[in-house]
């Protein structure tokens, strides 16, 4: 029987226990036991401080003592079975298609059962036929009556939540390598929904909200500075993304960057909002809310990378920027989003 020293010398030469066992004519597990005093099959559980010994292998040593591990893989491809089930479910495909707007209408029709497609002409204009109207989409306060006053924090927080849902959707969709055309459309769609939201949100904040924050809350200046730096970062990424298709090799990278940038920014704003909640009266917050909403309703829909953060400049520049944005939207750059207003709200609710 080989001695401990013999085995350890072989270990020191860099050989593994399998080779040592073969050389010495003993099972590998036995070689391990001789070298370390520990059974390779793990039948002892020594204290961590007892493991500092020559020849010890971190991790499992079972394979030294055991016969071959057998993991019988089913010969069945579960993946393709799932795919067949999805394909066989036309309603599922249809619902999925509605979540990826921007597809060609022919594709939409091909995924629908023929008998439902009696009024093809109206298809494009009503991806959502109304039967799905949840009637509860009032969290985005833009839909509330104009005469109802709104707390600026309620407004901005709701907008964060919408943005958050879109980010989550973006995060969940597979990277370009694994993405199907439908995934890419979903990604583009989520970005298309995100851009105007961020644009309106940030523009109004820059104009009205940060000045108020600087003036009223402790650390307001620092916080506002930090938030605005983050906003510029977000705006920059959004600017890069705007017009970048999901086929673009930079797309995933930009999305990842965006998700991180927005996440940090939102966390900062969460702190700010709490400060505002403490420092401003409800009346003040409503006043601010009205102003912010007014700006947003007339505000730009696109992100402007070089947007100045000087409120005075902004106030002057805003109408022009907004007009240009609208003109560009009319020219078609934003058509897919306009088409899918209803589906959007449904996607938001269901996808959250």
């Amino acid at each position, binding site marked *: 029987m080989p001695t401990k020293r013999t085995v350890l010398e072989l270990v020191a030469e860099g050989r593994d226990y399998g080779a040592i066992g073969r050389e010495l004519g003993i099972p590998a597990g036995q070689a391990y036991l001789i070298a370390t005093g520990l059974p390779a*099959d*793990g*039948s002892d*559980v020594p204290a961590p401080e007892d493991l500092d010994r020559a020849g010890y292998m*971190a*991790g*499992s040593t*079972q394979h030294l*003592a*055991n*016969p*071959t*591990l057998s*993991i*019988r893989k*089913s*010969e*069945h491809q*579960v*993946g393709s*079975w*799932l*795919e067949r*089930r*999805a*394909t*066989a*479910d*036309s*309603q*599922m495909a249809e*619902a*999925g298609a*509605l*979540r990826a707007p921007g597809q060609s209408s022919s594709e939409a029709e091909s995924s629908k059962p023929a008998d439902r497609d009696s009024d093809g002409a109206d298809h494009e204009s009503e991806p959502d036929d109304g039967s*799905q109207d949840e009637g509860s989409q*009032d*969290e985005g306060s833009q839909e509330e009556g104009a005469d109802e006053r709104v*707390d600026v*924090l*309620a*407004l901005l*927080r*709701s907008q964060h*939540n919408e943005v958050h849902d879109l980010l989550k959707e973006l995060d*969940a969709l597979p990277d370009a390598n694994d993405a199907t055309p*439908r*995934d890419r459309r979903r990604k583009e769609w989520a970005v298309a929904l995100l851009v105007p939201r961020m644009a309106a949100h940030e523009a109004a904040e820059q104009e009205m909200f940060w000045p108020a924050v600087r003036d009223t809350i402790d650390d307001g200046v620092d916080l506002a500075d930090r938030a605005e730096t983050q906003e510029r970062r977000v705006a920059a990424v959004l600017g890069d993304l705007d017009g970048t298709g999901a086929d673009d090799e930079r797309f995933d990278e930009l999305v990842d960057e965006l998700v991180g940038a927005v*996440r940090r920014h939102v*966390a900062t704003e*969460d*702190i700010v*909002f*709490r400060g505002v*909640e403490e420092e401003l009266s409800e009346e003040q917050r409503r006043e601010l809310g009205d102003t912010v909403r007014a700006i947003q309703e007339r505000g730009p829909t696109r992100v402007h990378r070089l947007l100045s953060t000087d409120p005075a400049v902004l106030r002057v520049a805003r109408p022009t920027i907004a007009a240009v944005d609208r003109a560009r939207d009319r020219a078609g750059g934003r058509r897919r989003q306009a088409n899918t207003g209803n589906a959007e709200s*449904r996607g938001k*609710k*269901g*996808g*959250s």
Partner: protein
Amino acid sequence: MNLGIMDWAVLRQLRSGDRFGRGAGVKSPASGRLGPRTAGADKVVKSVCPYCGVGCAQNVYVKDGKVVQIEGDPDSPVSRGRLCPKGSASLQLTTGSARRHQCLYRPPHATDWEPIELERALDMVADRVIATRRDNWQWSDEEGTDVRRTLGIASLGGATLDNEENYLIKKLWTSLGVIQVENQARVCHSSTVAGLGTSFGRGGATTCMQDLQNSDCIVIEGSSFAEAHPVGFQWVMEAKARGATVIHVDPRFTRTSALADMYVPLRAGADIAFLGGIINYVLANDKWFHDYVLAYTNAPAIINEDFLDTEDLGGIFSGLDEENRHYDPKSWQYEAADVQSASGERDEQFDERTKGGSTVSQAGGSESHGSGGPSLNVEAERDETLQHPRCVFQILKRHYARYTPQLVQEVCGVPPELFDRVCRTITAASGPDRTTAFVYAVGWTQHTVGAQFIRAASVLQLLLGNIGRPGGGIQALRGHASIQGSTDVPTLFNLLPGYLPMPHAHAHEDLDAYVAGEAAGTGYWGLMKSYMVSLLKAWWGPAATPDNDFCFDYIPRLTGSHSTYETTLAQLDGICKGYFLMGQNPAVGSANSRAQRFGMANLEWLVVRDFSLIESATWWKDGPEIESGEMRTEDIGTEVFFFPAASHTEKNGAFTNTNRMLQWHFQAVEPEGDARSDLWFMYHLGRKIREKLAGSTDEMDRPILDLTWDYPVEGSLDEPVAEAVLAEINGWDDQGRPLASYEQLNEDGSTACGCWIYCGVFADGINQAARKKPASQQNWLGPEWAWAWPANRRILYNRAAARPDGSPWSESKALVWWDPDEAKWTGHDIPDFAADKSPDYRPPPGAEGPDALSGTDPFIMQADGKGWLFVPAGLTDGPLPTHYEPQESPFDNAFYPQQRNPVRQVFSRELNRYHPSGSEPGADVYPYVITTCRLTEHFTAGGMTRWQPYLAELQPEMFVEVSPELAAERKLEHGGWATLVTARNAIEARVLVTDRMAPLVVADRVVHQIGVPFHWGPNGYTRGDAANELTSISLDPNVHIQEDKALTADIRPGRRPRGPGRTELVQAYQRRAGITPETGMGVTA
């Protein structure tokens, strides 16, 4: 063999230099040739032990297509290679001669079995299902509400079924309109689901066993951890080695007590008095964790002004409807708010919440949901100063003020000095840098106030700030391999997968009304519709469309409770005619087993699937009633089918252990003979039924014909591919890709998912439950060993491990914290929280679902994100745990005039009589307290252990444990026989006289307790009378679990009478005690 003289041992020693015979020198050539069976095996297959809920990993060694050895797998972070006596005997369980491999058939009135071909038996069963269903079909109930179901068929499963098997069982039965689908989980841990679910949001253990090593104090109560879950107990010993204090509170001194630092004997059934006493100590001495309680619990919430406490009403709460044995929980609500529970009886509020619709029955309803919380329709009023007289904190204080050490002594029999030491130890070991864990098992669950036992521990742990933190939490030790799994993928009448409630019959209930009635609008239950629609898509696929409410109407409706005990009564009443037993043995394993057998004798047909001929398969020819002459085999018309079952080594599938961890076991060998998995049985039974019904235009057959039932099969036996079922459970998107998270589920039909809480177990198309990364290569939680729900989080509510601002409470107890630079939650575990929701997030008004919870709300399944000290909705018997005496008790309730839980479920039947209690006349006829228990070497009703020679030898005979004082009082001899008598039956057992059963002084008199192990029955190698002959059907109203941990009885020396004398003895006792149909039935008595 030929040994030369030089081979003699002594000479060999000298020759080899091993003079003292300490090494190889003394080994003879014969023993030198011996090797372990493992060494000669061809391969090793990874598996999981099928006994208790610890879920020890096993290596199955296979040689020439046979299993030759089973060992522990040292890589497991839970078991670390260890197996207990049962796990070590699982080789015998799976390969022993006691296993049957042939189908058997007993025609009506026949006196013996006859062999039958598997195919023919299956075909006959399919025919019977179809006929019984058709003959007993109900489109609507007496009140004309749609129910679409049959009460003619019932199914009861064991908890060693794989999740995939449970899934097919529930899916097939539901599509056939069978609602009486039940499981061992009902009689074992259903109280856990209600107790933990309403308190924290999910009905599973809040922690994992390995994390006990981080505890500073471990309180084990209602469990003999060391004996019933021996391998899990190693983590208690690890904690003890690190300096933790271990406290064992139990009526019996067991090996758990022997290893504890403190043993506290208490009277069985008095745990709420004991825990309430600790709560009172914590509140009165200001020992609660202020920052935690204020931020993370509902202590500041203000309760409805109509609420009246037990303090005001002599032990009952406001809202009691005496006539119907029912509480209207409306007055328990938050002020100005209407919350729905994450769990529990959510249907209670259907009318209220849907503004109309008629509740057909007020009983039953969804039990506690494993995963859930309340819904707040309006923001609750709160008083952050905790001074408002109607805030939860003040109500709590008043409610528990009466739970003084003196009363604890009077009720529990625990001396004040010992009680004080327990209180001091627990509170000293709780706080920002210390944590205490509670561990319990069925000693808490099996009571008429079972759910409230667990609630009491939940209240205490919340006050001490021990939930969601390392070394803290509440561990609900599950006694079976997949008890947790069989509530998650429930074969329970009141649940759909993922703790979605089964719908109750209401007029005009559609999917939206169901969601509005059952779900919280806020927290993760706010997304219930997505979970439900995805389930309907998984079951009915293309047939489920928005136009038909995704086939929501295909789900049969409940009208009250249809638990396994109501099923027994339905059998006695001739309503239930066909019965499936899938690895379950109610003839000895369910309370009042005599009633169980009479119920089965009233069936038209019975299907038993098991390893051996258990008592539930053979009662018609050799049951106790045949011996007593009450039944004659020739008179019994029940047709019985026996199908041999496959063992865990013979099939693929996953068990979910007590850590909520899904562990995959791989098939090592094919089952022999007619033995088949339950997956095979259900799939092929469903296939046959569908073939036979094909072409039917009857509306009642639409759900079964539209069901998605096209599972791929493999191998020579056409075994369904278990991974395909797992993939269905996990869910997929519109492109057929496995989903990664339940957050991806949609309510528009674009996703399908068979069990939303298991979504992610097949992420990326990989079986995550089969992951086997060795424990030594990861942290103590073992995140890459198998997969735990939800979302692979190992310690639930771990957001609470950080302060409200996101930083750890202390360095030593850091688990999950907010990283401000990355703006993300991070740490040792996966955050049980939206990873990017900052601690400063506050919801805007009107927010729904998870968005409605703030960045400081750790209990994300709850509608208000808080841990519930007070449960405003979800429990049927009160918002706060309150001490009631067991259904049968030698004592009056010293706390209140109200003796018992007023709304407990009791059933006055000839076969199910109750004893007088306390000072009622006749109570002294049954003067002793019985508590049932489990032994290390046996398992539940014995079906998996009494047939194993190793285990039978280790625990060879039924016995009862009595104190020397009781032995003297009743002239019982150690080793001799005793007979125990209740109003249900009489049993005999050997007497074990031991100091371990200490008599207690309760209410100034001595009470004797008797320990009675559960495991015996008349079949197998080791035989004896079953403990369940003594127990009654008296149930917790929340979850319909039986009270078998505390009841009264008499004990007398000698064996029980044979023949008719047995029944005569029982009846003589009943007469002496003056028992009538009204005894023990009172509501407010």
